[in-house]
């Protein structure tokens, strides 16, 4: 008779908790920081004019090419509707590539598209742009890779091609990727949790599972859990996450967190549970530990 009770207890343990978000207190008041200005840092803030400016959406040509570009834009911004057959989680392309792939330091498409084919450290070979996008679908969107001749892939490539109108080919454009963040002496997930709760939890939730509309779509994307990117995604690597956080988060105040804080938050996100690495077996995923640098 003990077995069922034990099972019940186990099942209760794995059920998600339903604690509501704490009521409105300005979370920053939990831990006010008022110390002496001892650390001077450089702000690599965007300097308008320094970055490539892609064409405006209103200028998409009204022909068949323009129609495919517009469709690609829809797939990019609303992958949950237009690319759903390839997507396994709750994210869109524009969850990480902000402003429809236009924003410098958030993986701008106008900097990525002209730089492929390129050598890729992750796979240790030279990949084309299409192969790179396939990896996004497999890992960041935790789904299946569209074939290179899939209509969705063609539309996405057309959109990227249009966004890169006038961009020089095969150069490292300023604003490419997520910028650089130096690794501090130590990054602590515990400290990261405090910063997360005061700076991130209002939108992404205290549980990190994002916030949803009544219709089930994500308003603020999940940072971990089953609807987030999987363990093989680039964002899982703490360094990449720290770079993204520092350059883009919180929305509206980029570069406001210090390198230390960005790394702490990245470590706090890294220790959370997320979908398994599809390249590895279940056994390896469950029992073989990985380091924050692996992805």
């Amino acid at each position, binding site marked *: 008779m003990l077995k069922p009770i034990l099972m019940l207890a186990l099942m209760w343990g794995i059920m998600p908790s339903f604690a509501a978000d704490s009521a409105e207190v300005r979370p920053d008041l939990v831990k006010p920081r008022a110390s002496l200005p001892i650390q001077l840092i*450089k702000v690599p803030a965007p*300097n308008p004019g320094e970055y490539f400016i892609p064409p405006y959406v209103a200028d998409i040509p009204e022909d068949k090419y323009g129609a495919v570009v517009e469709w690609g834009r829809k797939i990019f911004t609303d992958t949950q509707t237009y690319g759903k057959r390839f997507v396994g989680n709750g994210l869109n392309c524009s969850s990480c590539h902000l*402003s429809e792939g*236009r924003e*410098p330091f958030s993986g701008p498409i106008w900097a990525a598209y002209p730089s492929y084919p390129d050598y890729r450290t992750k796979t240790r070979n030279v990949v084309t742009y299409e192969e790179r996008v396939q990896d996004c679908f497999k890992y960041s969107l935790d789904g299946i890779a569209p074939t290179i001749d899939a209509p969705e892939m063609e539309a996405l490539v057309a959109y990227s091609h249009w966004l890169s109108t006038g961009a020089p080919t095969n150069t490292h454009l300023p604003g490419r990727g997520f910028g650089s963040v130096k690794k501090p002496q130590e990054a602590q997930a515990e400290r990261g949790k405090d910063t997360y709760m005061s700076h991130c939890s209002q939108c992404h939730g205290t549980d990190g599972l994002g916030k949803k509309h009544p219709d089930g779509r994500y308003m603020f994307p999940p940072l971990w859990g089953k609807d987030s990117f999987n363990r093989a995604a680039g964002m899982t690597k703490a360094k990449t996450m720290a770079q993204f956080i520092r350059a883009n988060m919180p929305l*509206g105040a980029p570069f406001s967190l*210090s390198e230390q804080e960005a790394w702490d938050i990245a470590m706090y996100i890294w220790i959370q549970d997320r979908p398994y690495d599809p390249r590895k077996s279940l056994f390896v995923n469950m029992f073989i530990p990985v380091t924050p640098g692996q992805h």
Partner: protein
Amino acid sequence: MRVMSAKKLNKTLIFIVLIALLGLAWWAYQTLQQRPESVDEAALSAGEQLAAKGREGVLGCQTCHGAKGEGNFAAGFPRLAGLNRDYILKQLQDFARDPLQTRAHIEPIARDYERTPAIYEDLTVYSAGTRTDAIMNGIAKVLTIEEMQQLGLYYSLLPFTATPVAADVQTLERGAELALRGKPEYKMPRCTACHGPKGAGFGAHFPPLAGQPPAYLIKQINLWQSGARDNDHLSLMKNISNLLTDADKANVAAYFANLSYQVNEE
């Protein structure tokens, strides 16, 4: 055919029944969760009373915000109908807070990055929120927190349907560019990233932009720029306001006034 022994059958039955019970409990829990919240009728009627007639020292809200909380588009008084109740409560509390009571606020990021590349990383002091307004400060200071909650409840349940305001194509196009894509070259996020797609608002912290008088929206951006309104999380809206030009404000306010919007259907 193999026949189960009675003992084994018994065990299996117990297991199945337990699983079924668990499922039933789960279903009941889900159903209870989905049940709509019961409305506190006494608080609702008290809020209605207060909104209509006010009391000693308090002007009735309807005087400026309209008989059904629809606002006054000509004078730029905001619409209250259908706003989040916690949002209304927070704003009233911020109106009531004396700016002198709050701690100093020091902008951590220097605006002109080229000339002042070095900033003090650790010199961030956060303040509790304050909102300066000639009319609302006086009213909010007299209200008790219960009355604020009653007003929030009353106005959050009122229906509202926006009347789209026409504007020329160029204004709308520029407004849409800001509302849907922001200013990527300045790293200014789009309005809809937080205020919800179609500007319908999201939760207690992100009020709707659609269905508000354009004059009110522009005035709020100006207040943020001047520092008279300072009650946003991590100064996010303040930073964003500082990136908006006067033309941007007019365009984006026209864009949101042009959207059709409905809340709490009648």
